[in-house]
């Protein structure tokens, strides 16, 4: 009865033979009498999703408590159903192709889990099969609790940008056609990626200025700088300021609640800021120079979302002092970016660190809560639509089609 130690290869062969045999056996079996009132035998298969609509979104779960197992969920907001998921390991980021042809996950693994060789990975997925269509190693990536602008995609989906900061600040440029990193652009002293056009992006610099990078047809970058337009020590702008990548429009939101409407390009221009609180008929909020003032302030993680079709901004707001910029929002404020006026204040059933919005006419607002629920509101009036209970552990940002 005792066999000695066998080679692993032999075991492998036996295993695959076995698997093949079983599959064949099962798939050639058909019920003899289909007319009988007996449930038919079935074959196993894999779901391929139909083409998605505007309410099929990606939701990143950072899984802070077990960050090796971050993931991206594909969710149908209309049915409240989880349609599938892919790995997004350790402070990953995800961006979707503007035309919905693919989505991309930048993630990091170590070969032995918490040790061994590190892999910084860019994986591309077919959005209907969730099969990988590319799986390459990046030169590196920044390991930061994921902010959306740590990764970006150009307006035509040709370039994917991945932020790196170890040790120098740089952006890796991945060519989705070539499936490889074609360029690394250093952005010394600057960080984050706000894309514009097909081959340009801007980063925010530590002195409150912008660095604008444009790549030519060969991918060669040219960098320009704007003058500083805010004082980071006093009132920095949030990383999760919403943008429209197609036209390079960004509304930078400051900790105190100022909005800097910005048109990105080689010569980015920044408009005079206006105050969210003033738009709501309140006093402009204090900055770091008067940190004890308690008032309504923006805060959270993905704390703001933009609906481009009517230029409405949704911002999570809470009451607090300065230096509470990561506190969850107890209200959602809807603002008209053209008129600089408050449209609506929506009190939330539970504080939310995240808000997302779909871009269609029947738009949906996405929120979360401490339990990891995905809460869906009607984008027209802020009324509750449904709650997708316990979707994840730490829902940190969303990606909706066409945003």
């Amino acid at each position, binding site marked *: *009865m*005792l*066999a*000695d130690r066998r080679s692993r290869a*032999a075991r492998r062969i*036996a*295993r*695959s*033979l*076995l*698997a*093949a*045999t*079983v*599959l064949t*056996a*099962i798939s050639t*079996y058909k*019920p*003899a*009498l289909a007319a*009988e*009132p*007996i*449930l*038919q*035998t*079935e*074959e*196993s*298969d*894999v*779901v*391929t*999703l139909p083409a998605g609509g505007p309410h099929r979104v990606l939701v990143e779960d950072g899984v802070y408590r077990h960050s090796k*197992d971050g*993931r991206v969920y*594909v969710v149908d907001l209309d049915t409240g*159903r*989880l*349609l*599938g*998921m*892919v*790995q997004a390991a350790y402070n990953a980021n995800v961006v979707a192709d503007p035309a919905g042809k693919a989505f991309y996950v930048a993630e990091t693994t170590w070969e032995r889990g918490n040790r061994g060789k590190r892999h910084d990975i860019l994986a591309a*997925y077919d959005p*209907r*099969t*969730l*099969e990988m269509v590319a799986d390459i190693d990046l030169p590196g990536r920044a390991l930061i609790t994921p902010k959306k602008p740590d990764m970006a995609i150009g307006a035509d989906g040709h370039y994917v940008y991945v932020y790196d900061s170890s040790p120098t600040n740089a952006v890796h440029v991945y060519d989705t056609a070539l499936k490889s990193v074609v360029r690394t652009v250093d952005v010394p002293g600057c960080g984050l990626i706000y894309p514009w056009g097909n081959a340009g992006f801007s980063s925010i610099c530590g002195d409150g200025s912008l660095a604008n990078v444009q790549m030519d047809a060969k991918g060669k970058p040219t960098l320009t700088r704007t003058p500083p337009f805010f004082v980071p020590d006093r009132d920095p702008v949030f990383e999760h300021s919403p943008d429209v990548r197609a036209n390079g429009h960004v509304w930078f939101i400051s900790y105190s609640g100022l909005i800097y409407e910005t048109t990105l390009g080689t010569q980015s221009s920044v408009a005079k800021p206006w105050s969210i609180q003033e738009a709501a008929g309140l006093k402009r909020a204090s900055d770091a120079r008067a940190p004890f003032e308690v008032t309504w302030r923006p805060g959270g993680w993905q704390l703001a979302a933009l609906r481009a079709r009517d230029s409405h901004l949704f911002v999570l707001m809470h009451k607090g002092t300065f230096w509470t910029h990561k506190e969850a929002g107890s209200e959602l404020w809807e603002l008209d970016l053209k008129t600089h006026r408050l449209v609506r204040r929506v009190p939330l059933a539970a504080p939310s660190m995240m808000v997302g919005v779909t871009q269609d006419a029947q738009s949906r607002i996405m929120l979360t809560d401490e339990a990891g629920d995905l809460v869906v509101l009607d984008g027209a009036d802020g009324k509750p639509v449904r709650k997708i209970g*316990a979707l*994840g552990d730490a829902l940190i940002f969303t990606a909706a089609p066409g945003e």
Partner: protein
Amino acid sequence: MARNGLDTMAERLARYLAGRSSRRSALARLGGWAAAIPAFPLLPVWRRDARAAAPAVPSPFAAKAQVKDDTKCDYWRYCAIDGNLCTTCGGGVHSCPPGTHPSPTSWIGTCFNPQDRRSYLIAYRDCCGQDACNEQNCLGMDGDLPTYRPQANNDIIWCFGTGSLLYNCSTAVIVGTAE
């Protein structure tokens, strides 16, 4: 003492496809592997002529099972499932969610359908390649034996032959009747 490779393979195959039995007792759900190494098995026996004498509800699970909602733990096919229902993870009762792959091998339970009052052989095929889908998690224990009876155990990660063996969710596929 060594056994030849084919024997071993046949034995393994037998385990994966086990549960062949025509007895109408609760024992029907338990695999036939321990009894002997059978001739190279194809599929579970399907004896239509035993139909007339269908068994009474064979287990506590079956007594409370329903046939309408396959996203709930008490759905009849889940009498012996252990894990996340693929029906709540983007898959179906016999379909894996996109981005995962069904295991070609599985363990086999026997579940009673209260609607047609027949017992069916159910292959609990795991869908693999992504870590756990944490929607509806269920634990059915009908006929679940320890891992020294692998063909009837629901703790084994049934992801052999699927690339990575990360477990995402479980399907419950009808592969035959158990009469």
